[in-house]
């Protein structure tokens, strides 16, 4: 075996590397090292500098993405097609980098005032973003696995960032144990897929599973394991048990990052597996997705109704939103395949801006109230009318009230499942419609608390919102409005021609 490997190595030719296509990842990696080194040499009072550098690095990584999009030439395929930069990956990369930037803005004050380790925090945050950025391009089991661990391992540590707080410890340990178990399950599924397809390249696996026509038990087992593992990452019910505890225990900016970034990372991985690795095995994953989507929407909504802690309620709300993103997956293998992919991209963009905005308002308000209870939000209209209006905007968008982004995302999700015309499609549309109505209950409850109730302690002094959080609110608020009023903006990005041509839709 060794001699064979050495023999293969003698004919080794250095692959041509497209540095322009890899530029975002390279800038991020260099940025991580810079933050790490700068952190070593600056005094404690100047540690805020690491946050600034992290923000600059994230914005700098967006530049090559813009130039790649402007050049707009064909799909750039690197390393024998195992790492692909196409329109889908470009828009998702841009989204992850902007999520990272907003989370840096949200973290600055919280991490500085809490006396936490600042330099290390931003190193881990950037590493997590790097993993997500890699995930969008990964077209090989090995790179999917490496990206998956890259976006998971730093977030385990971030969740437990408040070292002395037992709640934060609990959040980290629960997240770690279930996350590590999920990645082990995923690996077992991947090893079986490799055995079936004789290759780790996703397109080869897709071809190998297509040719035989009839699915073997091993293939079915592999697909179930992989879908379940990504179910953990996107906190789909019944794999959601870690999510509410971790979200509540972790520092709030980290929760915002987990509920948006890490969840979207899981969905991107699910897209590349479902659309590229086993698109024609839909007999297996279609019922699976149907059950996951139904349970996730319903359980998330019902549990959210009875929460009294705002972050915990947002956790369950994000679980149920995840169910809506799973909805288009149910019709992924049908004639609505292309619409469903566009819908997933559009929904992820809208969900990211809206949910980050909701967390930004929560972080701003808890600076005054110092309480996570929903009842502490009373009287917000009198002391923080601007924040109240923004919170209303974000919750209206999450609930799906026109003309905000969430409305557009929900409408396109329903359009996709109805276009398919399958039994599963109609069934999931009905369940989704019922759940949309239930969701008004808990979003409305918060709005009532903010608009109608007086402040619980009668303290009507103003909330001081730091400039970085104002910037975060500006970005997310503008995004939510813009995506709702001009949905063609994202639909244009969602035009994933390249992914279609690479055979992503099983054609």
């Amino acid at each position: 075996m060794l001699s064979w490997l050495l023999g293969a190595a003698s004919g080794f030719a250095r692959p041509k590397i497209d540095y322009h296509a890899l530029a975002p990842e390279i800038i991020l990696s260099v940025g991580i090292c810079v933050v790490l080194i700068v952190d070593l040499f600056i005094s404690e009072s100047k540690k805020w500098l690491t946050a600034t550098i992290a923000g600059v690095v994230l914005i700098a990584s967006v530049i090559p993405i813009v130039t790649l999009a402007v050049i707009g030439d064909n799909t750039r395929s690197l390393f024998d097609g195992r790492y692909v930069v196409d329109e889908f990956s470009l828009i998702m990369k841009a989204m992850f980098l902007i999520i990272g930037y907003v989370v840096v803005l949200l973290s600055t004050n919280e991490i500085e005032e809490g006396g936490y380790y600042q330099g290390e925090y931003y190193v881990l945050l950037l590493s997590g973003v790097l993993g997500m950025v890699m995930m969008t391009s990964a077209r090989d089991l090995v790179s999917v696995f490496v990206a998956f661990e890259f976006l998971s391992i730093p977030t385990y540590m971030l969740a437990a960032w408040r070292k002395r707080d037992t709640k934060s410890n609990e959040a980290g340990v629960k997240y770690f144990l279930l996350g590590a178990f999920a990645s082990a399950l995923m690996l077992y599924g991947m090893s079986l897929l490799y055995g079936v397809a004789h290759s780790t390249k996703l397109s080869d696996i897709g071809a190998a599973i297509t040719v035989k026509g009839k699915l073997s038990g091993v293939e079915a087992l592999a697909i179930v394991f992989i879908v379940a593992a990504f179910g953990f990452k996107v906190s789909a019910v019944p794999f959601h048990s870690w999510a509410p505890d971790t979200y509540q225990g972790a520092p709030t900016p980290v929760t915002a990052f987990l509920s948006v970034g890490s969840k979207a990372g899981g969905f991107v991985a699910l897209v590349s597996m479902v659309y590229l690795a086993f698109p024609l095995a839909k007999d297996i994953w279609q019922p699976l997705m149907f059950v996951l989507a139904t349970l996730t929407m319903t359980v998330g909504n019902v549990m959210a109704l009875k929460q009294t802690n705002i972050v915990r309620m947002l956790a369950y709300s994000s679980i149920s939103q995840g169910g809506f993103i799973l909805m288009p997956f149910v019709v992924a293998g049908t004639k609505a395949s292309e619409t469903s992919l566009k819908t997933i991209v559009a929904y992820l963009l809208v969900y990211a801006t809206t949910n980050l905005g909701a967390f930004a308002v929560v972080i701003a308000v808890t600076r005054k109230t110092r309480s996570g209870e929903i009842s502490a939000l009373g009287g917000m209209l009198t002391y923080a009318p601007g924040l109240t209006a923004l919170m209303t905007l974000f919750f209206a968008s999450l609930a799906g009230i026109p003309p905000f982004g969430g409305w557009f995302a929900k409408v396109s999700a329903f359009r996709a499942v109805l276009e398919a015309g399958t039994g599963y499609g109609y069934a999931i549309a009905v369940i989704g419609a019922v759940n949309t109505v239930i969701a008004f209950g808990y979003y409305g409850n918060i709005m009532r608390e903010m608009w109608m109730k007086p402040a619980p302690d009668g303290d009507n002094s103003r909330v001081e919102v730091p400039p970085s959080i104002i910037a975060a609110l500006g970005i997310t608020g503008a995004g939510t409005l813009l995506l709702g009023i001009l949905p063609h903006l994202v639909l244009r990005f969602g035009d994933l021609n390249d992914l279609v041509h690479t055979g992503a839709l099983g054609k």
Partner: protein
Amino acid sequence: MLINQFLLLGAVLFCIGVYGVIARKNAVMVLMSIELILNAVNLNLLAFAMNMNGEGSADGHVFALYVLAIAAAEVGVGLGLVLLIYRNKRSISLDELSEMKG
């Protein structure tokens, strides 16, 4: 060919690992069970790779190396977290991690 025996051993290791994750209440034991699953994965990958001879064989070897390296990093973080709860609570029993409910 011997591949069936290897895959069977892998499946047995996997099942023991999953049982351990579900049944054990000690955080370190759960970590060890996860390691068992990862060993099953590596056994599978290498058995398949040896069975292929040539085309696609290197993929499996490379994958196994990545699994080894990243599993080590993951366990490093995991033991750090377990140490953290031990310092704060003087216990690594998962049953006692129940401050948040609902």
